[in-house]
């Protein structure tokens, strides 16, 4: 590819990112009069805006290596005039759609491990149901509680994304008894290195215990949980990074399904919000993959982390009623 074209792509990507960065601010301004005037902007304006917003979000999520569901809830929840329950419901559907779309390809390549996913999914999805019920209960008490908790979680995710250093192939010297019993081991073909990689896990009990918390958080806030799944699978349980990443994505399709039921059942999934979000994010991630070859993701990742911090702090600010960030 010629240098000029490369430059053009880079500009396009930068422009897209700026749109994401500025869109919340612009929409934020639009949302204040809406709240005051009781519907100055017609209702049908929101699905198209959401579609465009989610398209950009989808592109950025792929380029930055951050789950679409993780970006969706804080950004849409923070800057769109929707009730937090609806945003969480749609967020779960968004994360679920992405996971279900990615699942077959990952399983076919033997990167996502069913054996590793199922015990973990059992724990995580049970807790996701509990988390979803708890979340709806809390927001029935006062939505601001959820806002504040979400804020802390998002800020935490930002820190995690900033600090976590995953290991390509962790050394597992001894498979523990539980891992042996569940058969948590496998093999995949590394296309880049052209070699067969065998792997096994350890510290299974600790890993499963951590998934209790991850499941709770996923259900509570309607976040995809890739940011937490991957470090636990990789750093704690010792699965290679590729297996962790693929299994984590596949896991969401189970975990988030359980939580999504709770939200669906309570009427928290509004098609007018969920459909444009899902379509936008899916199309966005399709384009994002095409852009991956021409864009340096490191910078975008940093910028997204900054946006996450901003969204997280804003949610804390709102939840605690400090009024420091508008």
């Amino acid at each position, binding site marked *: 590819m010629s240098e000029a074209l490369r430059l053009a792509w880079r500009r396009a990507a930068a422009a897209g990112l700026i749109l994401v960065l500025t869109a919340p601010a612009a929409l934020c301004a639009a949302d204040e009069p809406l709240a005051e005037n009781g519907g100055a902007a017609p209702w049908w304006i929101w699905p198209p805006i959401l579609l465009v917003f989610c398209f950009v979000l989808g592109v950025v*999520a*792929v*380029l930055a*290596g*951050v*789950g*679409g569901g993780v970006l969706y809830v804080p950004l849409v929840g923070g800057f769109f005039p929707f009730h937090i329950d609806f945003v969480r419901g749609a967020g779960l559907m968004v994360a679920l759609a*992405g*996971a279900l*779309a*990615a*699942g*077959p*390809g*990952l399983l*076919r*390549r033997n*990167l996502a491990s069913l054996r590793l996913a199922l015990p973990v999914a059992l724990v995580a999805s049970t807790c996701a149901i509990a988390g979803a019920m708890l979340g709806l209960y809390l927001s029935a008490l006062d939505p601001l509680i959820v806002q504040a908790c979400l804020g802390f979680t998002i800020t935490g995710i930002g820190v995690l994304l900033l600090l976590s250093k*995953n290991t390509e192939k962790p050394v597992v010297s001894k498979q523990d008894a539980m891992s042996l019993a569940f058969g948590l081991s496998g093999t995949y073909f590394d*296309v*880049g290195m052209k070699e067969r990689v065998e792997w096994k896990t350890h510290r299974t009990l600790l890993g499963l215990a951590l998934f209790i918390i991850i499941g709770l958080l996923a259900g509570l806030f309607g976040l*995809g949980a*890739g940011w937490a*799944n*991957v470090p636990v699978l990789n750093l704690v349980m010792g699965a290679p*990074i*590729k297996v962790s*990443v*693929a299994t*984590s*994505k596949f896991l969401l399709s189970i975990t988030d399904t359980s939580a999504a039921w709770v939200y669906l059942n309570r009427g928290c999934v509004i098609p007018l919000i969920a459909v444009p979000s899902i379509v936008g994010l*899916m199309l966005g*991630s*399709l384009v*994002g*993959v*095409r852009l*991956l*070859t021409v864009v340096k*993701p490191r910078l975008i990742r940093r910028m997204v982390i900054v946006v996450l911090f901003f969204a997280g702090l804003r949610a804390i600010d709102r939840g605690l009623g400090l009024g420091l960030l508008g």
Partner: protein
Amino acid sequence: MPEQGLTILVVDDDEQFLESVAQRMRLRGHQVSTAASGAQALEAARGARLDLAVVDLRLPDMDGLVVITKLRELQPEVRTILLTAHGDDKVKEATESLSSAYFEKGRMAGFWEFLSGIPFRRVSILLVDDDEAFLGALAARIQIKGYEPLRALTGGQAIEIARQNRIHVAVVDMRLPDMDGLVVLTKLKEIHPDVAGILLTGHGGAKLKEATEALNSAYFAKEDMGSFWGFIRRVLRNLETTMAAAGMAQHGDVDDARRMGDKAEDGEEDKK
């Protein structure tokens, strides 16, 4: 389905034993007929093609080994097993010299194991096409599904092969250098009346289709198969790969996602 039960004849004068063995074989998906004597067995063998005959050593009218020998005369390809309650090494040797298996009734476990070791009936497929590349590709795809296809480049070759081998399915190209595909199908049906014929053609038409169906054969146009389904499959596969790549990227593995994304883009060239 590549597998089809075996056609088995069980010969024993002990009615109870006969029925219980036959029942067990039927449960395993085989087609089983029974005979209580050697004469009945030979009669059955004249009426139908057998894959396997299980024969008791002591029959009221003749010796089991004799039955096996005569069955072989009728159907040289039949596999045979001798079952006996009163065996000894001599009988065993005699049986094995007939290249027949030998089991004692007291040790039926071995017999069942042997039976499940026999591959289910091979469906043999004859492919006839003058385009060698197409023939090779078709044969490779059929092999993947577990069949052993026979190949012929001309109608003459096809008929020659059909005379020497039992053919269950024939896939014939319409235009062959020496004769018309329909003629080949007709001749194959003369040799093996129950052969299932499939006519493939690049130059089809309603009339040809009718003619093929008159021969009780199926008809496919070549171009419909490749292009349309290939296109759909390619699009779906690319989409699947791209979404998998997006999934990898979103959970932090950008390098692999990039590699997979590249492949999805190149996919179309690969398949051409």
